[in-house]
């Protein structure tokens, strides 16, 4: 037993745990050098052969800074977070959905990409933030969310109507000094880190690390966060939702939505340089 223990510990270094699945880095390595390295590179630093041609650079696994997390800003994501991002793909970037690979393959890949950065040896993944159950969608909730959108100055980047054309939008850069655009809600495309209200809650609470999108976990109370989620859905005027339908049924909501001129790309419409 005493001899077996250190071996067990070293084996865990190259593992991932996603639900009931255990991924193995050794198996993931084969898959990585078949499917991933063209963009993410031989060393996992995002400098693959295709890397320079992509306008959102491939993730650098050596830096180990990740956008889509359930964990607080500045912490490592959980294995599930990485697995979900790979499964979903990252919308409005060149990262496709890898749902075509088996779940075991994806878990193995997660185990392997964690070997690129020493952070996985020194740091633990953060504790996922608590997301309380979603309250009912009401007009009051939407209206309060609208106030928060103004008060928290989401519009500085995302624009007063959520078109991604706020006063700071054209100046934004990611942490590699590459230009980056804020999300345009009106285009209605899927969010970078998921499709559900629960995902939207996590996006602004944990922030998208490596981008200008900060974490609001310290400054928004959970009940307020849900109000903001409900309002943000009404900004997706080209996408059907319970929130938008309810908002349109009110006089104020119908006026706000009908006054909008819809156009532009999923990330930023008609930004003035």
């Amino acid at each position, binding site marked *: 037993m005493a001899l077996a223990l250190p071996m067990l510990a070293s084996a865990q270094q190259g593992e991932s745990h996603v639900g009931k699945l255990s991924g193995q880095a050794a198996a993931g390595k084969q898959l990585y050098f078949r499917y991933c390295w063209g963009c993410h590179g031989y060393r996992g630093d995002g400098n693959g052969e295709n890397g320079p041609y992509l306008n959102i650079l491939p993730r650098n696994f050596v830096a180990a800074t990740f956008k889509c997390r359930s964990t607080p800003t500045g912490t490592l994501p959980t294995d599930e977070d990485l697995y979900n991002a790979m499964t979903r793909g990252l919308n409005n970037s060149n990262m496709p959905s890898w749902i075509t690979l088996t779940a075991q393959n994806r878990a193995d890949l997660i185990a392997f990409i964690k070997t690129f950065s020493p952070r996985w040896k020194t*740091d633990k993944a953060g504790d996922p933030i608590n997301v309380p159950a979603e309250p009912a969608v009401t007009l009051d909730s939407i209206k309060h969310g609208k106030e928060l959108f103004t008060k928290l100055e989401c519009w500085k980047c995302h624009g007063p109507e959520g078109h991604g054309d706020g006063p*700071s939008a054209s100046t934004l850069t990611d942490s590699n000094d590459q230009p980056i655009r804020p999300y345009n809600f009106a285009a209605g495309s899927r969010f970078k880190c998921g499709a559900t209200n629960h995902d939207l809650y996590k996006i602004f609470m944990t922030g998208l690390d490596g*981008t200008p999108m900060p974490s609001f976990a310290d400054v928004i109370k959970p009940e307020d966060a849900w109000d903001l989620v409900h309002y943000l859905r009404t900004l997706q005027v080209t996408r059907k939702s319970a929130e938008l339908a309810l908002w349109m049924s009110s006089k104020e909501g119908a006026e706000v939505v009908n006054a909008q001129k819809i156009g532009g790309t999923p990330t930023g419409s008609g930004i003035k340089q």
Partner: protein
Amino acid sequence: MRTKGVFLAGVAILAAATMTTAVPNGGTVSGKVTYEGAPAKQKPIDMSKEPSCAKQHATPLTTETVVTGPNNALENVVVYISAGAPDDSTPPSQPAKFTQKGCQYLPHVLAFEVNQALEIANEDQTSHNIHPLPKTNREWNKSQPPGTPPLSEKYDKPEFIPVKCNIHPWMHGNFAVLKNSHYAVTQGEGSFTLPNLPPGKYTIIAWHESYGDQTQEVTISGNETKTVNFVFKAKPY
């Protein structure tokens, strides 16, 4: 008698301990940081997109990538001991304070120690996001609306970290996370003093955000003051 002996020994140990911290034979390194050549002209900042900040400045602020004083003095240079002094095992209990006021970081360069508390306050009527961009420490990015309490953070590895606010792209600052308490940041006169140095050989580095760093070696033997000056070559761009 016996109790008294123990007591006296205790006093002796206490006295010895006090002596080590005060370093009565400690030396001092002091000097001046200057530049030669023509530094890049700093540009005025247009804060018209943030009126609550713009009105706080009677004359527009300028960028602060190179700040100079009289007689070619160079400000905002971190002078610190990189080798020769032991790492500080316990960081100071006082937090290092970083303030956002008038859409400007005060101070522009903040030096503090590894694991020392860092307190970040927003005194403006607008939201800021504090986005330090470390390479060896963890990167985080937090929103701080007006009226919210100061953030408390720390860094566990030594590093020079640029800081920015994505909402107000003109806001730039720097954190210098250092391993020991022997450091100074130059002000208007460009001078610095590193006191309380026990005899020994030290490596002293002067770091400037635009001009990089310079290294000098100095040997302290006893209670003396050594002068070390740094001259940076200013680049006109």
